[in-house]
């Protein structure tokens, strides 16, 4: 009787310890720190995983379709961080809009984004903004060569 109980107890302890270790290791390896541009510029740590949120600065957006190089700056009004990314900007992304990027700070002085989070909110607000073509205008330019 005693040995059976010990066995179950030992099993439980082993499982709990393994789980605790897995959680601990998982957290340390995949922790992503939420920062604002001012927090990041105060104490940037190269290689640490950050999630950086702010506004995309007007006039900072550069998109090179051939090489898929995307560059822009994110600001919170107090500090500005240059960001580079490889890949198409997501649909909801644009200048003077909120954006959240995930990636790390490089010693070369820019933020290397691995993901740009396109937040699909259920409440869409801004009806039209200047940078985006209106459907009508788009149709005009497309109907010619395409359809």
């Amino acid at each position, binding site marked *: 009787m005693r040995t059976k109980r010990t066995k179950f107890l030992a099993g439980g302890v082993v499982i709990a310890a393994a789980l605790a270790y897995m*959680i601990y290791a998982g*957290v340390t390896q*995949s922790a992503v720190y*939420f920062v604002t541009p001012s927090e990041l510029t105060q104490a940037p740590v190269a290689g640490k995983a950050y999630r950086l949120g702010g506004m995309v600065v007007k006039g900072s957006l550069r998109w090179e*379709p051939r090489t898929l190089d995307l560059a822009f700056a994110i600001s919170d009004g107090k500090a500005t961080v240059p960001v580079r990314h490889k890949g198409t900007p997501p*649909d909801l992304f*644009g200048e003077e809009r909120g954006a959240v990027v995930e990636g790390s700070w490089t010693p070369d002085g820019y933020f290397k984004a691995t993901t740009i989070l396109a937040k699909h909110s259920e409440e869409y607000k801004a009806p039209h903004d200047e940078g985006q073509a209106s*459907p009508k205008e788009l149709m005009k330019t*497309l109907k010619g060569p395409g*359809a």
Partner: protein
Amino acid sequence: MIPEIGYGALIVTLVLAGWGSAAAAIGARQGRAALIESAQHAAVGVFVLVTACFALLVYAFLAFDFSLEYVASNTNLGTPFYYRITGVWGALEGSIILWTWMLALYTLLLILRHRENARDLYPWALSAMLGVIAFFVLVMTVPAPPFARLSPVPADGRGLNPLLEDTGMITHPVALYLGFTGFTVPFAFAIAALATGRLGDAWITLTRRWTIVAWYFLSLGLLIGGWWSYHVLGWGGYWAWDPVENAAFMPWLTGTAFLHSVMIQERRRMLKLWNVALVVLTFALTLFGTFLTRSGVIASVHAFTQGTIGAFFLGFLALVVLVAFTLLAARWDRLKAQGTVDSVISRESAFLLNNVLLVAAAFTVFFGTVFPLLSEAVRGVKVSVGAPFFNQVNVPLFLALVFLMGVGPLIAWRRASMENLTRNFLWPVLTGIAAAAIVWLLGVRSALAALALALTAFVTATVVLDLVRATRARRRMGESLLPALGGLVLRHNRRYGGFLVHLGVLVILVGVTGSHAWSVQTETTLQRGESAELAGYRFRFDGLAGSEESNHFKVSGTFTVTNGTATPIVLRPAKKFYPRDSAPIAYVDYRLGLKEDVYLVLGDFARDGSHATVKAQVNRLVSWIWIGGLVLTLGTLLAILPERRSGR
């Protein structure tokens, strides 16, 4: 008029549900049949009224009654007919009304099924169901009113979120909510068992089918959600460990644990306390999930509105837990187990371990999901853990669970002898090892993928072995093969339904393994007429075309895809521009296949059609996830068939 009628109906519903809940409880306590009868009438009234409210809202959507704020926010004159109906549950207020309607429906079914066969437990269960309904109706009258008036009345509404204009979004919430609300029934019976002190296996036997049905709908909801994510969102995946996915996954995990642990109580009279706690936990997690998604405490793709609704759900959650634990404490002495686990190597142990692992998985998902809140509270910095955390922690747990899926159904009760183990597991283990060797020879170098496939082979072998043995035994009695197999499966439909569900899960596992281990993708910009290559496929960009759709403008790229031998396929991924939105919505185009899916997402494009950026993916074995869902469906149907009584 609609707002006044709707609001009035909700108030009456609230009163009726509150009365019914109280009357059923008092009637049960004092043995007054008239009060229970009255509660039944109240429940029927609640069902009729909630149905009427729901129909009223559907009518308002169809009639474009923009004097209702909810209608104006979720539909407009261009919304296609079907989506005007399904738009009803496209956002918070309508979801709550759908949820309440399902609860009322389940309550009605509960009355029909159990009024006669569970005289002791039934009134308490009815009381609990009506209590939960009362809470949801309360939510509809204060923080999430579906009939709120909008003034001045706009000429046109804002329209449904374009992402929700998809068949997946018609069915996903329905299935998911049927799952969520379905767990209210076993919860109500658990409360009834606690209230009456009848903690034997009566409440478990009564709720067996209810639990299976709830579990099935929850699984289906998760799968349809994955399908929606895969073919609408255009990131090429089906599961992102998003807080809201997690919110639905946690009750699925504990519900799965409950589904297994009740078998131990039925068979060995053990785990009484554990079962009650598990079902309370599962129900609490469905509320917690709603709190998480609707309160906006955690940023997520699904997190919609903020407001007082979070506080309501948190308050109700606290009340439920408090009531359940008070009752548990009061019945502590009756919850002691009658049986004990005799040996570490036994079916009881395997089930116990299954439960521990499932609850551990639920805990890690919970921990990871609320981690940002925890870290902010404890250390003052906001830190999140993403998909890598969930994968890293859960994959070992899930693989261990798959192993147990093979062991549990075949290992002996009480104490498995060496002979029992060799008899049942020698061949399956050899099959597993052989499968690992074969995939290794085929060039698979991912240890994790090889392990997953080996375990799949092992579990499949245990099922086949069991079927072959049992069929052979019947054939010795003189039956021919097919009647023997059919008779066996129908006679023990619960066991073989369970096996079929297990096989469905294995098929899903193959899909998940394949898509994780072998999917490839590339992103590139192509000039018109230029091609790119990926995994043996050539994609040629042939140009852009614009078209006016009923409520949006669509720009599609034409891509011709060839892979050497087969005839070329043409894929047209697009971007849809909705007038009300400033940003377009991606429209994915794909060709599904058993071996792999070709999946194209249109990125940026030049307005003159000279070049376009495209994300191309070859996703391996993903279709098996959906096929697994079908197998799961068949298994569930088999498991809930009426049991055949052994006449002899």
